[in-house]
């Protein structure tokens, strides 16, 4: 494996995607606030996008399919962030806190 041609092989992209997924899962477990968990979720989205793009570039006969899939992922991520932040703001207004440990009351 020629190190100068590293960028034309799928392995480095897939390993970076696996790393992003692992860091995202770690953050999702360890973060104590809702916004921190949201950021970790974005890292997992990024890992999925990078996986789509790498496999699209190196194994798919139609090179535009993966790019369109990643465009859809970006659109869904933007919608998800908008909804999540409005929920976080509503939660903050009720509890004066977005620490996930404090959110322990149900209505009913």
């Amino acid at each position, binding site marked *: 494996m020629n*190190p*100068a*041609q*590293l*960028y034309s092989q799928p*392995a480095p992209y*897939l*390993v*970076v*995607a*696996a*790393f*992003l*997924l*692992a*860091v*995202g*899962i*770690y953050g999702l477990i*360890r973060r*104590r*606030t809702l*916004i*921190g968990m949201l*950021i*970790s979720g*974005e*890292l997992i989205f*990024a890992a999925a*996008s990078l996986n789509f*793009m*790498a496999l*699209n*570039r190196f*194994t*798919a*006969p*139609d*090179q*535009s399919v993966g*790019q*369109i899939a*990643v*465009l*859809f992922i970006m*659109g*869904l*991520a*933007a*919608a*998800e962030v*908008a*909804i999540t*932040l*409005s929920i*976080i*703001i*509503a939660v903050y207004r009720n509890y*004066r806190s*977005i620490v996930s440990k404090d959110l322990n009351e149900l209505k009913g």
Partner: protein
Amino acid sequence: MNTFPFSDWIVAAIFIACIAITVTGALIAAFTKRIIRSVCGLAICCLGLAGLYYFLNSPFLALMEILIYIGAVCVTIIFGVMLTEPDEPTPENFVKPFPVIAPLVGLAIGAGVFLGIAKLSLSGNWTAPAALVSDGSVKAIGIALLTTYSVPFELISLVLLVAILGALVIARSGRTKE
């Protein structure tokens, strides 16, 4: 063959720099205590990802990554940070239930996921396609979006509309007079 000396190695160095930026940004996003630094880490990570997309023959998606993630998602999260009090609880008012075990368990799960998936992706037999149907240019993406993928394309605009309306309704509900 190349007109510019060492151009292969310069390209390889830029590629490794993109990977380093992505990894560093992800680590900053997951490990810092202050949430605003975490958002900046996410922005750095997306910048490195845009570089990786460029190496994957897709300058269009590199531009979109910067435009949507850094320009829209990170700025929206910063608005959320301004409107709430997002920092991790300080030790004075928060007793950690498992101060030693919990980070180790998180690290073990993260390392397990990383090692497992990295081993799978390194051992996978990724065969190149025999013939390319489409070259993945911006023109090909546009044609595919308006022919093959026209229904998902319209549906995602509907999803965005509903998301905006839903966000307005949810965030507004507490603002009426008590």
